[in-house]
């Protein structure tokens, strides 16, 4: 293909034809799983449909799509990690204390949503916030758990809340 084709903004259809197969192959190499790769490639193009962009050239489109797909991989990876940790926690719990299947799914979704919201924060700030608000631990308990002062915990909670207020 001649790069001059990109002198005019290409349609998503054109982009799809030009890029879908290499993107899916690239994702498959990263994820080691064809089904996930297909899903994420699809996601990437859906996002492009939602917010169309102009690309000056074929390599520029490729760089953009690769960056976006990379972000989607990280998303998927973090969601999976949380899902696995939650399943491990449930498995370790006595039968009687386990929440219903529906509630288990709701909790998982909440944990993933919270992670998405807090992921750009320093880990300790995010953890202090989630321990304090999610499990109602006192400042002293959180401080002992993180090995920081209670003053630091207060700062972390404020920092995380401010971040949420400005992001939501």
């Amino acid at each position, binding site marked *: 293909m001649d790069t001059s084709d990109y002198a005019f903004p290409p349609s998503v259809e054109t982009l799809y034809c030009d890029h879908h197969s290499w993107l899916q192959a690239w994702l498959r190499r990263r994820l080691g799983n064809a089904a996930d790769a297909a899903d994420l490639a699809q996601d990437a193009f859906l996002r492009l449909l939602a917010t169309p962009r102009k690309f000056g050239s074929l390599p520029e489109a490729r760089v953009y799509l690769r960056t976006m797909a990379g972000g989607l991989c990280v998303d998927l990876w973090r969601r999976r990690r949380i899902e696995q*940790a939650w399943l491990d926690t449930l498995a370790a719990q006595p039968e009687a204390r386990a929440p219903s299947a529906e509630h288990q799914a709701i909790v998982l979704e909440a944990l993933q949503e*919270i992670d998405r919201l807090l992921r750009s924060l320093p880990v300790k700030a995010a953890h202090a916030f989630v*321990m304090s608000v999610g499990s109602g631990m006192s400042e*002293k308990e959180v401080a002992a758990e993180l090995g920081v002062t209670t003053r630091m915990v207060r700062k972390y909670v404020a920092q995380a809340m401010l971040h949420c207020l400005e992001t939501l």
Partner: protein
Amino acid sequence: MSAADTPPKRQQSATVPGHAVLQQAAEWFALLQSGEATPADRAAWQAWHDSAEAHRIAWTRVDRVGQLFQPIQKTPDPRGAVGAYRSATIAVGRRRLILGLAALAGAGLAGSVAWRPSLLPGLFLAWTADHRTTTGEVREVLLGDGTRVWLGTASAFDEDFTPALRRLQLVAGEILISTAADADRPFVVDTPQGRLRALGTRFTVRLEDGDTRIAVYDGAVQAHAADGTSMVIHAGWRARLTPQGLSPAEPVSPASEASTRGLYIAENDPLDVVLRELGRYRTGYLSVSPEVANLPVFGSYPMTDPDRALAMLESVMPIRVSRPMPWWIRVGPR
């Protein structure tokens, strides 16, 4: 300052809480959440919350963030769920830590020092006033001349009697006054928005949202606004003194007199109005979901016992009262 150029400014600052306001909200949240907040802290938070529309809007956003955690709080083992989150995010942290710190460097909390003192004047005056009540308290005071004053929740006034004048200065909240007759010494109540002169009477004065609200039950009150205008408010009427002057008088409801004594009489009042009034009697945050905010409420409720009033409301209405945190009450559909 003309009245014409202020409303748009007010509107703007009211609808979009800026960074500074969000930062204050976050700091308040951290304090209330810490388990170390004193009653004075909660009163100071309440004053902050009530003092501006932007603060209230910011706090509804705090509420929204809090709601994200509800499924975790409700699970039989919240610590287990939080532990799962921590173990899943701890190892991926290093790179994020560096990126996160860079992103947050500009959004530090250094500004927090700047706003605290601005809260102080009103609160400080209330703490040092001659007569005051804490949140949830209602008290009767007998003054030297035989005048009776009932202080509503979180209210304060100063008493300044001279041989020529009986003067009260309302500093916070609401008072109901039943004046004793004294032909030689006029009785006045001063508020930040003007002066009220009693003409043999029983009336309430309330500071709310930067206005003075007056309701007269017996006799009459002459109200003088800061801009020099004045009017006589007769028994059965109420009016407001605002920074822009006096509002026209309207008929008064008997319920508002009862309120100074800690009883709320609801006659087809929307639920959010009743809850807002109840909120004045307790420290902490009370949120109501939009689906139930407009449900009509009937009956009388003891405001001095907010937990009982809430239980009564819950028993007669299709609502559910939950307490995500000890200082936080949320009212939603059942």
